[in-house]
């Protein structure tokens, strides 16, 4: 049984218009199905407006789809009772794109990470303190950062705090919605490496939503491409993304920037643009 199964999701915004306003309601998601196995990362790619983030929200239980099901750990997310829902939230966490708006600016790093612990666990002050210190260390920060406020951290550091918070309850899966897109190149790679290490260490599953093929390639086991609310292709062999003739996939691949200036006007096979021979 897959950790997460998404079955035939169809959804549109603004469907509940008053009946005397005639409007074309365009579906944001149409018949989307996918699955994520435990301990694996699914990279979800697509240009902006493809429906990736909406799908992320539907999966997280934040947006009830008009049709279709989301089955997490064998249970229908939208048919759960309150108690099951609460348990699900422990196991299914999220890290969003904007690290600053994901935190309360008036709370210290310690309090930010403590929040899920306080909501779900009954730890003594000492236990909680140790747990937070350990989480900070896991994400490459230190316990001396505990009393700092969000404004004292860079975007990359704050994203590490968001990841620490997401790890606090030892979840099974984390949805990473453009989590590294706002960071500069060097920081992106550092955070991607961190995510990779944490995945191996904890047997985590990820849904990695992005429009950046390179970032997705580096962390994903399987890659799926979305276009116009539909799944355009699922690739269990990542490398097949580059040779796919599927228009939506091809346009994403063709839009990649070259790894080396010599490939900038590549008359050569497009694949050559992505290789870097030193």
């Amino acid at each position: 049984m897959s950790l997460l199964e998404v079955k035939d999701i169809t959804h549109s915004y603004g469907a509940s218009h008053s009946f005397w306003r005639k409007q074309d309601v365009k579906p944001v998601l149409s018949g989307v199905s996918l699955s994520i196995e435990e301990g694996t990362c699914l990279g979800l790619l697509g240009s902006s407006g493809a429906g990736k983030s909406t799908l992320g929200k539907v999966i997280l239980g934040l947006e009830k789809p008009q049709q279709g099901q989301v089955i997490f750990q064998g249970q229908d997310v939208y048919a759960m009772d309150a108690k099951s829902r609460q348990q699900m939230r422990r196991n299914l966490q999220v890290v969003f794109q904007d690290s600053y708006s994901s935190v309360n600016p008036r709370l210290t790093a310690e309090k930010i990470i403590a929040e899920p612990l306080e909501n779900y666990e009954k730890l003594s002050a000492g236990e909680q303190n140790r747990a937070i210190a350990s989480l900070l260390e896991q994400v490459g920060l230190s316990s001396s950062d505990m009393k700092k406020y969000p404004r004292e951290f860079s975007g990359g550091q704050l994203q590490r705090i968001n990841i620490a918070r997401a790890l606090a309850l030892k979840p099974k899966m984390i949805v990473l919605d453009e989590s590294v897109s706002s960071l500069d190149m060097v920081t992106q790679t550092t955070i991607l490496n961190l995510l990779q290490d944490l995945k191996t260490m904890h047997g985590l599953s990820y849904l990695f939503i992005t429009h950046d093929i390179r970032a997705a390639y580096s962390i994903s086991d399987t890659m799926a491409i979305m276009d116009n609310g539909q799944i355009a292709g699922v690739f269990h062999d990542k490398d097949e993304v580059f040779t796919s003739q599927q228009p939506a996939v091809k346009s994403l691949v063709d839009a990649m920037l070259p790894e080396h200036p010599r490939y900038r006007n590549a008359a050569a096979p497009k694949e050559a643009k992505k290789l870097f021979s030193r």
Partner: protein
Amino acid sequence: MHTQPNVLQVDNLNIAAKSSRGALPLVRNVNLELKPGKVLGLIGESGSGKTVTSMALMQLLDQRAMQVQGSIQLNGQELNGLAPKAMRNIRGKEIGFIMQNPMNAFTPVYTIGNQFVETIRTHTGLGKKQAVELAIASLESMNLEEPAKLMKKYPFQLSGGMLQRVMIAISMSLRPAVVIADEPTTALDVTNQLQVLKELDRLRTECGTAILLISHDLGVISQLADEVAVMRRGEIVEQAEVCDLFDRPQHEYTKKLLQARPMFSGNEALSRLVI
């Protein structure tokens, strides 16, 4: 080979923030040269001083808070210390600016057309009708669809990619000598990125505009730059022709930057396709 004079010549640029503890250096001894039709890439992490440098070039730093020393010459004319009124004539007309977040470049309460025409008429002697024609022609040259209709839209009705192209269209219409593009593609998704960079490329080949391309993204630099300056903690640590920089980086920091990209694994199947 005939070497053209530099359009932009920056010598010994030093920028410091004024504080109660004295002047805190932000940018030190920066020297840059821009030739017509050439693209100089300025790469560095966030906080390296790239944006502060670009703001100084356009004299947009608050003199009460910042100290700018050194020479900034545009076609031989010294800009540092130039009277605000004279600088206002130069900004836009001679030096264009394309900023990271296109949404911030436009006033939300006026249409695109309104803002475009205002910019044109501020810097040229064109009448309203002529300005509108020029605006429409510029939008068309950016491969934007239905330019006349676009003129009537408000900024929020356009996607980031479209707004960025509108910004480039405005820049192109004034035919500036230099364009400073500060992270022009960071806020855009991958399908728009390449398109915007290709439009910038056209700007330099068709109009001979010199471009200072600021980015933290090596892919952007790879795509467009002729020469690259690497900035770290307010200083330029290395400067080279783009292929040289990628093939033979000299400074430790440059090497670190080049290595810090999510790379594709040395896959057997793909390596067959290398020419």
